[in-house]
């Protein structure tokens, strides 16, 4: 006997597995974080009463503003650099490499560094950028500078270098994916209609790669907003991030203020992402 599934139930059943996973691993933990953010606490434990103190402390502290400015600064710089790099590399792979097999092969080459861990890739910059590192030695040998350049390592520069190195791929892949789907006859048509290279780029390629750009941007911005380890190591402790403050609260078991910071961060990242999605309607682009 076949089990008859009412037609109406099919879509619900189809989304059920994902919904259940999200419920247990996202909705419930998030709800717990939200509840905890209203609890009181002291050195000896969490006090389950309702209080707004955590949010008041968070929103009236100068440190919060400074941490957000610092984190947003990195997010913006890294977003701009990875966008230019990612777009250029994807463009090259999609349009200049004629053989699609070679293009895929080159794209896979971009992922080679990802075979080792994030931490190793980040730390390997230290001997390169250090005071007596490879770059400084080269600059000294070439006579460009008289004494080692200090700002290469343990600086905002070093943080940006590591972020760009680690996150550019997250920009390349979605943009390449969008570009690969652009019908080549559109470009030919544009050229036939008299468009120059630049016009083809701005009026055909960029509009049709929008979804990739948006997805890549969301990846890169959320990754930077959620980081604390890279900024800690590469800045040599001379910079901080929003998540680092959360980590430090958790370090001392101060869960309620950590939860409040996490809720605020979630709200801000959600706002950024919804702003990006408002500028480009990804769903419409993908459907169309």
């Amino acid at each position: 006997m076949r089990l008859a599934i009412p037609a109406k139930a099919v879509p619900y059943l189809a989304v059920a597995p994902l919904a259940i996973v999200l419920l247990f691993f996202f909705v419930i933990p998030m709800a717990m974080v939200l509840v905890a953010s209203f609890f009181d606490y002291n050195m000896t434990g969490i006090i389950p009463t309702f209080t707004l103190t955590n949010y008041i402390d968070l929103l009236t502290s100068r440190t919060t503003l400074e941490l957000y400015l610092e984190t947003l600064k990195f997010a913006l710089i890294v977003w701009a650099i990875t966008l230019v790099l990612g777009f250029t590399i994807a463009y090259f792979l999609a349009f200049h490499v004629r053989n699609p097999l070679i293009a895929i092969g080159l794209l896979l080459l971009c992922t080679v560094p990802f075979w080792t861990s994030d931490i190793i890739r980040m730390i390997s910059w230290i001997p390169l950028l250090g005071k007596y590192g490879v770059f400084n030695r080269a600059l000294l040998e070439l006579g460009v500078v008289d004494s080692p350049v200090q700002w290469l390592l343990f600086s905002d520069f070093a943080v940006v270098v590591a972020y760009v190195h680690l996150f550019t791929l997250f920009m390349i892949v979605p943009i390449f994916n969008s570009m690969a789907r652009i019908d080549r006859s559109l470009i030919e048509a544009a050229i036939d209609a008299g468009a120059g290279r630049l016009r083809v780029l701005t009026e055909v390629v960029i509009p049709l790669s929008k979804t990739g750009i948006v997805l890549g941007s969301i990846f890169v911005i959320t990754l930077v907003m959620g980081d604390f380890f890279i900024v800690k190591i590469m800045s040599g402790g001379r910079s901080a991030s929003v998540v680092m403050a959360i980590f430090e609260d958790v370090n001392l078991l101060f869960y309620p203020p950590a939860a409040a910071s996490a809720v605020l961060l979630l709200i801000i990242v959600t706002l950024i992402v919804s702003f990006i999605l408002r500028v480009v309607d990804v769903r419409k682009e993908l459907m169309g």
Partner: protein
Amino acid sequence: MKEKARSTSRVTRRRVLTTAAGAAGAAVGSGLVKGFPTIWAQNIKDVTLTHVGMSYSTIIDIARQATKDLGFKVEMAVTDHAGFVNRVTTQPDSVDIADGELWQALLVVPRGSYQPINVKKIKLWDKMTPIYTKGTFDGKQVSRIGISPIKVQYLSGAEAKSFAKEPTDWATFVPGFYNADTLGMRPDLIHRPIEHWGELFNSEFKGKAAIQDIPAIGIMDAAMAAEANGAIKYADKGNMTRAEIDKTIALLIDLKKQGHWRALWSTFDESVNLMAAGEVVIQSMWSPAVTAVRSRGIPCYYVPLSEGYRGWGNGLALMKHLNGIKLDAAYEYINWYHSGWVGGFIAKQGYYVPVPETAKNFLTADEWGYWYEGKPAKEPITDPYGKVMEKAGAVRDGGSYEARFSKIACWNTLMDEARYMNEKWNQYRTA
């Protein structure tokens, strides 16, 4: 079934005999504690103890030796500071022996994750250093600034979640490793003696100084320097007021803006690399990091300063869920821990153990002279793994054990205003 039981017991008996012989052989002449294992239960070999702590104390060699000597399995699990308190309080069943720092006890004990240790079941309790058990050293009171061991050593009773001010029969933990920290410097790059903590802020070392980026410890190094310079007077620098924290952080920010700090380091390796590369010539440092720099053939000096040392220590606590044979095994393990092998092993890393006289049996006379008595080494000194790290004739920085611990000025701390301090420290990072 019967056959199986018999073969198990045969294996157990053989193992017990060989391990007992091995342990007895190793403990010859100790005269203090010998004859491990002391538990002869048939099923003891099924016990596995998980010893959780920070990387510097949860060393796999200790677990291997314990497993060999005791007839049951000991495993080491390494965490960082944050991981430790979180694991012990939120997943207490995944831990058997909790090897935490003194100040961490302030967070864990009120949450009831540990079970009090009956000191009568600790064979060498009376031989333990009075730094922990009485709050004294050499008959004098040890500094109470910061989390001095005596503040967290005893509990008020068998079920207590609060600390006792005076010794009781119930211990929070058995004392673990401890040491006295100071500043490290490069004597080949600083051509004059360094005698005061205040030198950390000296503009002579602009761009070549570093401080550790662990707020609770970094602030103490900063406070030692600020006090030595006369810049700030503290009522109790181990438990600062908000105003005192503000002043200290303002001073650090000011120095940062002048370009004084090359870096804030947060891991042991970073401090070694900074110093070895010459990026930094004076900084907060931990003893084995100094050793690590020197074993690369680069001069590095762990300077005894006139204001004294910043002390730190660990303790091994038993988790609440331990009972029955596993609890017996845990007591057996913490008793074994002080019987000498561990002390001999860790001395070569520059750390001290609560019963030095047992460690002496596991060190040569020359090693004992070098590590504990401040005497020049007669032969090359090796690290715990046998690698030569000092040539004959070398003398340990800071001299003897007594010279070092009679000069503890403060201890690593957890202030009442810890959260405020962390927030301010983040301001310093972003400044």
